[in-house]
Every structure is written in structure tokens, then in C-alpha cells.
């Protein structure tokens, strides 16, 4: 039969290579292949097409994590989104794109320049604010980010903004003092507006390898992550790291970044994502 190849060890080796080279990682790959091997041993899978389909379905089940059922903002209060992640992954650019999306829904958006450390971080966010028609609240470089956030939320509440997106400085998850600073930003946000931040987006770069697991673990442990944004999928990296992360930490992937322009943000489509791994 055409396409109904018998399952040989070579076939499993080939699939293992596909999974590894997509950055799915050792542990998750072994988990996926072990479940496939069991099915083969029980004669539940008789040819390679069925085997690939079973593998794809298993990966899809790892990605099938529902969004948290957290209470949204009360009426008249802004939706507050805190954006976090390590250096250079695309937080500020993603915020620009997300603001554009909210603006196209007719919403008033306020951006908070919570990165008071990196050179020209506020300028970068301001340019995005201008591009999409969002207010940008910033203070002098070197200001305490928690103070900027506190003041911005006060302004957002009085201006009746619909959405507030807080940009934070890139930080390695292993830097305790920076993670403490992030926890403080979180506490101050919640103090100023009980229930906020309603969403915490962890931005992950699709070119990242297994270190993404450590990133997700520590950011989640520190402040709780409600969604993952996977950027730079327009490159050649497959972003397979999110498979294990989504599954292990029960965090859904909500958007993907596919470029540097304002419209390059798409809702995450698991079937398309899995198909791209096998292409």
C-alpha cells in the first residue's frame, strides 16, 4: 500500500529526530515516543501513517490547556496585563502588536513603561504607543518600576482606560534580585487594583532551547503565568519547547509572533503549530 509503511526502528528514529530538532526536548520526546511504542507493542498502530497521526494527536493533547478561569476586571476597571520574560525575547514589540489588536476593537489602551533600566526602553515603547494610538506612561530612567506601575494604574483608572499593558525589563530568571523586583511589581499592581494583573504573559523566543523550561518554571513560581506568547516563529525554529512547558505547567499558549510589524501577532493554532513541526 502507498504510504502504509510497516513500522520499523528506523521509522521511530526518524520521528525522534523530528521531535528533537524541533526543540521538543529529551524528557517530552521520551514521554511521547514511549506512549507510541506502547501502542505499537499492543498492535494498536499498524502502519507509519497511523503512527504519525497518533504522535500528532498526543502532542496536541499536551498543548490542549484551557485558559485559566480567573475573574476579569470589574465593570469600569481596566483589564491589566503584565508582560514578562528574559532579555530580548520580544516583550516590548509584542505589547505594541497586542495594543494594535485591542485598538482595532475600539478599546482605549494604556502602555506602562515598566522597563526603567535598559537604554532607550521608554523611547521604544513610546514609538509603539504612537503607532497604535495608545497612551504611554513613563518616568525618568532609573525610576522604581513599581512606582511607575502604581502611578500608571491610578491614571488608567481615572482616564477609564479599557486595557493596561505593563512592559517590564528583560531579566534572567536566575537573578534573584530581579525576580524579587518583579514580585514587587506584581504586589504593587494587585494593591493598586485588587484582582490585577488579570493576565501575566510570559514571552518565550521560539529559537530558545531547553532553557525555556527553567524560564517558565521560575517565572511561574515567582508570580504565576496565565499565558505564553511564543515569538519569532517566522524564523526556522519550530518552538517545540512550548509542548513540554504547556503540559507540565498547565499554561496555555495564547499568541504567536510571526514578524516585527504591528500586525504580526496571531492567536495560537495548535493544529497548525503541530503540522509545522512535521513539515
Amino acid at each position, binding site marked *: 500500500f502507498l504510504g502504509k509503511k510497516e513500522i520499523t526502528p528506523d521509522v521511530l528514529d526518524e520521528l525522534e*529526530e523530528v521531535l*528533537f*530538532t*524541533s*526543540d521538543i*526536548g*529529551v524528557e517530552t520526546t521520551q514521554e511521547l515516543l514511549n506512549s507510541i511504542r506502547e501502542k505499537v507493542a499492543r498492535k494498536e498502530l499498524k502502519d507509519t501513517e497511523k503512527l504519525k497521526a497518533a504522535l500528532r494527536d498526543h502532542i496536541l493533547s499536551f498543548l490542549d490547556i484551557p485558559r485559566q478561569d480567573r475573574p476579569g476586571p470589574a465593570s469600569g476597571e481596566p483589564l491589566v496585563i503584565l508582560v514578562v520574560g*528574559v*532579555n*530580548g*525575547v*520580544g516583550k516590548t514589540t509584542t505589547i505594541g502588536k497586542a495594543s494594535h489588536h485591542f485598538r482595532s476593537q475600539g478599546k482605549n489602551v494604556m502602555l506602562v513603561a515598566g522597563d526603567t*533600566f*535598559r*537604554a*532607550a526602553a521608554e*523611547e*521604544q515603547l*513610546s*514609538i*509603539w504607543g504612537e503607532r497604535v494610538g495608545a497612551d504611554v506612561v513613563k518616568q525618568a530612567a532609573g525610576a522604581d518600576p513599581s512606582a511607575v506601575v502604581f502611578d500608571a494604574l491610578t491614571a488608567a483608572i481615572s482616564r477609564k482606560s479599557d486595557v493596561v499593558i505593563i512592559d517590564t525589563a*528583560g531579566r*534572567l*530568571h*536566575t537573578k534573584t534580585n530581579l525576580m524579587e523586583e518583579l514580585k514587587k511589581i506584581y504586589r504593587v499592581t494587585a494593591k493598586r487594583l485588587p484582582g490585577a494583573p488579570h493576565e501575566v504573559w510570559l514571552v518565550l*523566543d521560539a*529559537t*530558545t*532551547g*531547553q*532553557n*525555556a523550561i*527553567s524560564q517558565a518554571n521560575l517565572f511561574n513560581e515567582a508570580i504565576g503565568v496565565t499565558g505564553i506568547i511564543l515569538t*519569532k516563529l*517566522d*524564523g*526556522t*525554529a*519550530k518552538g517545540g*519547547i512550548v509542548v513540554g512547558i504547556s503540559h507540565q505547567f498547565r499554561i496555555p499558549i495564547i499568541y504567536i509572533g510571526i514578524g*516585527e510589524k504591528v500586525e504580526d501577532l496571531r492567536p495560537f493554532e495548535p493544529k497548525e503549530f503541530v503540522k509545522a513541526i512535521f513539515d
Partner: protein
Amino acid sequence: SLTEKLNAVFKKVTGRGRLSESNIQDALKEVRLALLEADVNYKVVKKLVEDIRVRAVGQEVLESLTPGQQLIKIVNEELTRLMGEANKGLQFVGRTPHALMLVGLQGSGKTTTAAKLARHLRKHGRQPYLVPADIYRPAAVDQLEKLGAQINIPVHPTDLGKKPEDICLEALSMAGKASADVLIIDTAGRLHIDEGLMAELVRIKQRINPAEILLVADAMTGQDAVNVAKDFNAALDITGIILTKMEGDARGGASLSIKAVTGKPIKFIGVGEKIDALEPFHPDRMASQILG
């Protein structure tokens, strides 16, 4: 750790006088998994494990070592050999001003590294001139200007209306007026598969004939590192690599993949966000970091 895993594997094996084909089979599986977990590229791992196997089989286990330690010793030596000899640093030949070009994917750390290199070069007696050649990213020129101001290094007054290759050519002639002897060119982040932007880098190279073209790569990069490095090297014949964000807990296997596929030396590592966080690359330290 890998040493513990290998010791556990060898405990089950009798006859500890020599590493044999059969007793290192399971051990090599552990080595393979450790390298993959460290983000070394799949194909690079395959070749490396085979090289280790060939070296290990028939080797006598030294009196002072366990078979696991003996194998680790071989793995370490193979990794260090692949990582290359201790680097010779930046090579500037010919008339001044020399140009140094930084290239790489979006967000890898080029702009920050440009400032770090400027500080490093001045500390070693040179007169750097920073050139912002990224006309696309919002506030990219601002970013390099602010960094230059922090360390009192002149920054070329880039006109956003000009093409990067023309900006660089202008900077080359202005460098003399700033009595600078080395230009550090910060280019825009780009995908290795973006033909138009890769062609832009080739044009810059042709215009200013840089002494060094350094690929700035993120230490946490996964399997994709080989694709990126291969394409940048094919287009530009890079002279070296700088690995950034090395002070985190990334195992840094991308370093091995990049070295294996380009053959080019890793010259520096970025070890922090501050301008003084730049260190020369040590291949033996990298090998032990990869092994965890």
C-alpha cells in the same frame, strides 16, 4: 550530573579494566541525552558521540579513575577539542580605521555588545567609534547613543533617512575626524532566511571591508543555532562569534553546534546587562558548562 549517571551505568558492568564496545553502549546513550539536554544540535551530537565511542573503545581505565570518570575525561577532551583552542581575540590588520561588524538574529544582544566591545577596546588602548546602522527598530539609534554616552565613546550621528551601507561608508570617513581607529558597527537584527536583509549585510561588507564580522548569538539558542550560523557564515564568511547571556543557567550547547558548523572561533561571551559584562571565551570552561 553526567558523572553520576555514567558511574551508575558502569556499576552494572563487570570487568572494569578496559572500556569495551558493550560496556560503553549504555554509557554513550547517557552522554547523548546529556548533550541533547544541553541544546547541542542533534546531528552534531550524533557525530560527537561516534567520535567519543571510537576514542573510548579499547581504552585502558587508568588506575586512579572509575570507568565512568575515564569516559567523562574522554568526553571532556573531545568537547574541548571541538570548541577550539583558546581564542586569539580580535584581529586588526592593515590601515586604520578598522571596522568591526556585529550581526545576528533579533534580540541576540548586538547593540549592548557593541557598547561592551567599545569599552573593552578603549581599555586596550584603542579609539572606538560606534556606528548605529539599525534604521528599523524603534529607538535603536537612541539606544546605542545612550550606551555610548554612558561610557563616553563617540557615536556616529546616523540619519534614519539613509541606507545602512551609506551610513557605514559615511562613518568610515568621519571616524578619521573623530580620530578613531576602530569602528564598531551595530546592524539591525534579522532572520538568516530574509534574503533582502542578508543582502544588505553583504553590501555593508563590500563597502567597508571590515576586519572582523562577529555573529552575536544567544547562549540559550536551541537546535536552530546551526541553521542560523550556517547561513550567516555562508553569506558573510564571519570571523568570529560572541555568545551572549551566558551568565544564566543555559547550558550553552549552541556554542558547540555553531563551532561545529562554521569552524569559526568564539571570541567573547556576554555575562550580564551592564557595559562591563564582557569576557574572553574559554573553550575548556564551556565544555564543562555544557556537560553540567
